[in-house]
């Protein structure tokens, strides 16, 4: 039986159907979860998709954070459940404090919709283990106005020390983008951070869209490895097996 994975739908989500499709072709059974539901219906993992939840009023993700479904997602995550936030979903889980940091307005104030290159820093997580290699550039689109990753120096140092930087913007040889290179680091993210993982290793977020680069017809299938990793990890969790080695700390 395919593993059931929830896709949260907020008013203003607009990547929920892409995410549902990407999960389907990865062999999962997607389950849409409306923002007013207080229960996750027994899914084995949850994706918070991209979009503009609640119009992104006040700050991107903050109104969504207080919705009934997020209370359930928070409890699920606290219990070790797998949660992936993509783009606006990353902003929501950052506002909710499920992953560290904040997403600020892009450096040049513009909404950015284009392909970027990112690389996974580690493969020993439920979100990256199906990728071919760490450090290999993955092409996928971004589509955001507030994607500039921010933490203070101490917080960033702690992230690096604890290996919580999951994805970084890179150049085409896989080298980390510098802060000011607008080609490789589109939004000015500090330390070129494109995605992070929580300390427990079960909640991750990233600004680029793996679900929009999950099959060749979309121009890139590089995102499929991230979706497949999650589907496989969720299937293991549903079968009561140990998760993919989370961290080696």
């Amino acid at each position, binding site marked *: 039986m395919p593993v059931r994975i929830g896709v949260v739908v907020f008013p203003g989500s607009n990547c929920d159907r892409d995410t549902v499709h990407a999960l389907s072709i990865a062999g999962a059974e997607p389950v849409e979860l409306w923002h007013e539901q207080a229960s996750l219906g027994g899914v084995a993992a949850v994706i918070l998709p991209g979009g503009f939840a609640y119009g992104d009023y*006040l700050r991107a993700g903050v109104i969504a954070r207080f919705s009934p479904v997020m209370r359930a997602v928070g409890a699920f995550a606290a219990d070790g459940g797998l949660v992936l936030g993509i783009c606006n979903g990353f902003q929501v889980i950052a506002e909710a404090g499920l992953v560290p940091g904040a997403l600020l307005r892009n450096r*040049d*104030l513009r909404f950015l919709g284009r392909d970027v290159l990112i690389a996974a820093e580690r493969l020993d997580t439920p979100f990256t283990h199906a990728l071919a290699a760490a450090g290999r550039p993955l092409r996928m689109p971004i589509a955001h106005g507030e994607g500039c990753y921010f933490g203070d120096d101490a917080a960033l140092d702690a992230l690096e020390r604890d290996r919580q930087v999951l994805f970084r913007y890179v150049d085409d040889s896989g080298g980390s983008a510098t802060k000011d290179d607008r080609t490789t680091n589109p939004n000015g993210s500090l330390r070129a951070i494109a995605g992070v993982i929580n300390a427990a290793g079960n909640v991750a977020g990233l600004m680029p869209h793996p679900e929009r680069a999950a099959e060749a017809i979309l121009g890139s299938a590089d995102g499929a490895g991230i979706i497949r990793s999650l589907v496989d990890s969720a299937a293991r969790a549903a079968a009561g097996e140990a998760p993919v080695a989370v961290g080696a700390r």
Partner: protein
Amino acid sequence: MSTHRFAVNVTPKPGILDPQGRAVEGSLGHLGIDGVSAVRVGRRVELTVDAADESAARAVVERLAGELLANPLIEAYAIESISGASSTVGVPAGAGNPV
């Protein structure tokens, strides 16, 4: 119970890059204005609270400012009582801009 009106002023913390402030600053030259620097753009939220007294009302505003209106990682806030002051509520119908 009494009614209290507050404003919460939310601003980017010192050291946080504020591209909006920078854009505003960058436009000043077009206006022929110089000598203005360190522009920071924030947000002001006005609200009315019904509570037992002013300090109870302020406690409510503290909580909502810290949890919702500002993200303490990146923003600072200051709460200001504007009870009795002129504000955007209570404007009589028809007193707005002429159409």
